[in-house]
């Protein structure tokens, strides 16, 4: 187990280097000049050159990357923004809780939607409930989150006035206008739903398929032959096995979902990592972008590690292998 963990962590380091190198390379392939943007519209060649030197952009790419790495490892610093000199650590620290609230809450919402639909569809195949569930799945997969977001905020926020349609409230430190768990959740209801629908649809279909398959397993028949009631057969024998692949997917998708968060954050004006990433792409603000990539990579690696450990806990065959 220890050797396994060490191996996993070393691989995580390799993965981390690879991802940051790729981000750097892509950034420098894009034909744009951040120095020109920083120096402003009316700047002459001298000022642009000065800005370029100040930002370190006159160095070769590998030197810049080396500096970035050194700053990160030596000083745990992600550097400063090109455009407004903001401390990137600060930006990530303020944006990460927003995205985490959205993604984790969204994941809970999508599982809460997907589990009942998937399980009951599998238990009653071809029933009305199954067909209704699969129609939901089709809509959920086909509809773009931006469209869903706009429809939701128009319907629930504007027309019905049930929920706020923008802004984020801190879970802790209530400020004057809003804050605290209730306001936090209230403001996140629509973002959560918007964010969750696509995944809820995908997961409902996956859970339905897994449960259907597991219901046909021999050991489920054995459990029934023992005289176990259906509810017990379902919870103790079917779900534990059917959930194995779902747990894996969940770990991977929560990482992927960070990307999906861009849309939701933009629609609802949430100051999360996604919105920062989108903005910094517009202004070629490499440090911020790189900071978010670094953070996201760490999160994904962490989630995958967590999933592997969780998996070993659920499935004894892996634990001992």
């Amino acid at each position, binding site marked *: 187990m220890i050797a396994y963990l060490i191996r996993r962590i070393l691989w995580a380091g390799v993965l981390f280097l690879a991802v940051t190198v790729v981000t750097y390379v892509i950034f420098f392939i894009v034909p744009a000049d951040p120095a020109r943007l920083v120096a402003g519209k009316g700047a002459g060649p001298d000022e642009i050159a000065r800005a370029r030197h100040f930002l370190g952009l006159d160095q070769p790419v590998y030197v810049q990357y080396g500096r970035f790495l050194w700053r990160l490892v030596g000083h745990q610093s992600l550097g400063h923004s090109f455009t407004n000199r903001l401390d990137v650590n600060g930006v990530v620290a303020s944006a990460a809780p927003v995205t985490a609230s959205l993604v984790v809450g969204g994941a809970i919402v999508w599982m809460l939607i997907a589990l009942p639909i998937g399980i009951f569809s599998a238990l009653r195949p071809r029933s009305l409930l199954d067909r209704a569930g699969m129609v939901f799945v089709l809509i959920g997969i086909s509809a773009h989150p931006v469209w869903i977001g706009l429809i939701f905020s128009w319907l629930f926020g504007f027309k019905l006035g049930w929920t706020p349609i923008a802004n984020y409230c801190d879970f802790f430190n209530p400020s004057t206008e809003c804050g605290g768990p209730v306001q936090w959740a209230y403001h996140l209801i629509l973002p959560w739903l918007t964010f969750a629908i696509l995944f809820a649809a995908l997961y409902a279909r996956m859970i339905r398929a897994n449960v259907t398959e597991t219901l046909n397993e021999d050991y489920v028949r054995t*459990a029934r032959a023992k005289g176990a009631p259906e509810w017990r057969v379902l919870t103790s024998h079917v779900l534990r096995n059917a959930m194995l692949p779902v747990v894996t997917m969940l770990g991977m998708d929560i990482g992927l979902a960070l990307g999906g968060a861009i849309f939701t954050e933009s629609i609802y004006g949430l100051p999360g990592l996604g919105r920062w990433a989108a903005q910094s792409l517009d202004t070629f603000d490499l440090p911020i972008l790189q900071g978010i990539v670094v953070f996201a990579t760490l999160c994904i690696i962490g989630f995958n590690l967590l999933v592997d450990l969780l998996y070993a806990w659920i*499935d004894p065959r892996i634990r001992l292998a």
Partner: protein
Amino acid sequence: MALLDVRDLRTHFRTDDGIVRAVDGVSFSVEKGKTLGIVGESGCGKSVTCLTIMGLNARRNTITSGEALFKGEDLLGMSRSRLREIRGNDIAMIFQDPMTSLNPVHSIGKQLLEAVLLHQDVTKKQARARALELLKAVGIPRAERRIDDYPHQFSGGMRQRVMIAMALVNNPDLLIADEPTTALDVTTQAQILSLMNTLQDEFGSAIIMITHDLGVVAETADEVVVMYAAEIVEQGSVDQLFHRPQHPYTWGLLGSLPRLDADVERLVQIPGQPPSLLNPPQGCRFNPRCPYVMSICRTERPPLAPVSDEPGHVDACHLDEATKDREGEKLLAGMLAEAS
């Protein structure tokens, strides 16, 4: 009264292609403490018969009729909760493939405990003691340590022993074994069969042994039912069936027994395929494959008729008894000659 009395059991499945008559009017009974062998090719309905008795067929698209009286109670007509009380407690079942019949995510101890706790009002500790006792009885070495192991840590033969332990843990009156040795290698097969024989003496359970292997029947059964295409074609005691086989299909099964002691180039096989149960042949269902086929066989279904001088021995064939006796003897003599 017989322990289990099955009367005119029919199980039909509705499919997109039509109705599959998987079991079509089967009657037999099992006496207390005795073993009934049900023999037949794959797809002849022997497993479905037992799954129907246990109420384990999917309810969707299944039409069941007839009766299965267990100690006088009809298993087919009773409430699901009453049936659950009986399953695993009075009637237990073991299955063909021990590799897939145990839940991979629970330790075998947990699965055995579940079987006990579902039916007995005992503490976990007592249940565990009972589980351990059974694991020892079925010959799991170092049972105290292995009880917390998971199914994948056992070999196929050991898993089948665990399945048997789990089936017997509540002292059932009837054990249904659906090809319990088919997935095992030959030496393990012999071990499992002799284990089942020993345990039957010890626990006094009646057994329904489903198999396609007449060798298994000869070793374990008291009574035998031969099934072909969802129907019974011959039925009698083991002695009767092996000494005076009456039905051409039974002859076919006997003739196709592989023999280690005879130098044969090829195994004798019954020509052709078992018929589709969507649309079984007119008359005798064995007629397209029967070497003795007569014109009446193609039009008229032979009823199960008693064999003279042998109480309890019945068969369904249009051949006259003299011919059947002669051909049966010829086959047995041939087998004996090969053996010597």
